[in-house]
């Protein structure tokens, strides 16, 4: 038996949430679909597929003050940033939710990033199973699934006359308190992700192909913009700078990317990743090698945003296949 909610009931539930918390949901803004706060349930785009930008903005904002500092007489007074607002994200896909969840690895490892921890604690994720995976999607190859509930607080799965509701976490159950759910025996059809990527053993393959000229050739075409990193739900690199206004200083953290020139420039001017090949390789090594080595799961959830957005068609799925081949070749050579 499963619990269900009709579309109308869902909407009134969301309407209630909206009264007490910030509700973030996919919204169509002109030609884009983005996770944005909604003022009314009507604004929510229920059938939008994957959004153009990932929801990571709500845990790792593009710009966020870490603290402010001010001169007080002869002293400097520091006020750390505090997240007070309770937020609910509705309509997050299992892949995106997984993207957020795996970032607990780097951000909550000791010493934990206090802002990340606060964002996670104050935010409840209502996931939506992926009923029609897009051609660029490949979540199943990366250890996810269109109906994967492991990273959300509540998972909704669309069925003919409503949604199957699966309260996954305590936080999810709490949010559902007072909501009348119907018992039903419907089951959601299980969609599958057509695209299969040979990700198994990729960590080993990347390691072997590390010094291959492949990366340099691939970088020939790379423009080194930050699109892939900024649309990616799991790219979590940042830059920190101070901003002064009058006598006040704000320490700001903003998105940055390993694809930027100078990202790895260190004091004295040296840059260990000055050539384009090593920068591009860094992106894939981080996702496919360093992240799993440090935190377990692969650093890619297969959402496919970078595949679609890259202006020069640098396609991570193609790269995984290529690297597997290369790795195999190098493996043969060395054995």
């Amino acid at each position, binding site marked *: 038996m499963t619990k269900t909610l009709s579309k109308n009931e869902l909407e009134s539930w969301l309407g209630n949430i909206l009264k007490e918390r910030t509700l973030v949901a996919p919204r169509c803004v002109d030609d*884009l679909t983005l996770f944005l706060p909604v003022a009314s349930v009507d604004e929510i785009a229920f059938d939008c597929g994957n959004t153009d930008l990932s929801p990571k903005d709500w845990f790792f904002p593009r710009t966020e003050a870490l603290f402010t500092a001010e001169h007080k007489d002869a002293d400097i007074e520091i006020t750390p940033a505090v997240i007070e607002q309770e937020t609910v994200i509705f309509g997050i896909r299992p892949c995106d939710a997984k993207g957020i969840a795996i970032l607990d690895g780097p951000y909550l490892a000791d010493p934990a990033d206090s802002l990340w921890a606060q964002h996670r604690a104050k935010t409840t994720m209502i996931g939506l199973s992926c009923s029609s995976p897009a051609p*660029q999607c490949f979540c199943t190859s990366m250890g996810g699934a269109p109906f994967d509930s492991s990273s959300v607080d509540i998972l909704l799965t669309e069925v003919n006359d409503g949604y199957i509701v699966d309260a996954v976490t305590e936080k999810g159950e709490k949010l559902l308190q007072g909501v009348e759910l119907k018992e039903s025996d419907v089951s959601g059809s299980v969609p599958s992700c057509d695209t299969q990527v040979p990700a198994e053993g990729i960590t080993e393959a990347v390691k072997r192909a590390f010094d291959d000229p492949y990366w340099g050739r691939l970088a020939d075409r790379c423009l080194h913009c930050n699109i892939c990193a900024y649309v990616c739900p799991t790219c979590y690199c940042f*830059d920190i700078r101070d901003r002064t206004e009058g006598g006040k200083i704000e320490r700001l953290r903003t998105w940055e990317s390993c694809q930027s020139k100078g990202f790895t420039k260190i004091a004295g001017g040296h840059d260990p990743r000055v050539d384009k090949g090593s920068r591009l390789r860094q992106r894939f090594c981080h996702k496919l090698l360093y992240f799993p080595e440090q935190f377990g799961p692969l650093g890619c959830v297969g959402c496919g945003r970078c595949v*679609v957005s*890259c202006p020069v068609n640098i396609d991570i799925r193609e790269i995984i296949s290529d690297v597997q081949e290369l790795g195999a070749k190098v493996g043969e050579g060395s054995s």
Partner: protein
Amino acid sequence: MASDFTQQIREKARELLEDGTVECVIGYETGSDGISARPAFIYNAADVERLVFDNTCTHNLVKYLLNKKAKSTAVVVKGCDSRALNLLLSERQIERDKAFVVGVVCPGIVESRWNERSEQLQKRCDWCRQHTPVVSDFMVGDPVTEQPPADFADVAEEEAKTAEERAAFWQQQAERCIRCYACRQACPGCYCTDCFAESLDPEWVGIRIAPAESQMWNTIRAFHLAGRCISCNECERVCPVNLPLSLLNRKLEQKVLELFDYRAGMSEDAPAPLITFKKDEKLGIAE
């Protein structure tokens, strides 16, 4: 026609690689979706069969010449792209004798995205007055000389709004911008090793990815291209949040044409309008 162009480009590429004229041919190949083109770098004559030319070959490959350390590189250029060659030659960023230019008389490029391909021509093709490359060592297709008159209807439409509406419009655009700098990275005229946008001191553009900073970025990006933009519109195409960047470029293009009778990249010698002047000109400034 497209297959004929493809054939001619492959043959030329083979010849250039085989006789050692060039070390690399920069052209187009079919992308991972099987329907749209992407840039291709061919180093061996054996690989020339990868090269294609069709109406999805949108990228301005001249951009890639900026980083090429090779002794000699062949590059496939369309009419609009070719103007970038003149721009970069006049600004001493590339050396003419290191580039072999395979010009393609452009049949027009359609709107395409990964796994999406429409038969609708891109906006820039509507404005295009340069189907035939202005620089080439080898021409694919029959040159056309006909030049449609300049048309700035899109700019006029924007200008018909009130200042307040325009301010609000650009404010909305700035709110979308994620400052990935793809517009800059794709632009053949943006080649500074240290972009003003990333200068820490002076900090022209603050670190915040926020409307005020993005507005600053977009304004100055456009201004740095004033009289230099060659209208390939790659900036707008690559933008992941679909900012209407062409409007800014074209506003300046229109003004540059009107005030200085100048179109960027049409010749290697004509000085760009902002690094020259006429003593007696009337520009509507303090007159």
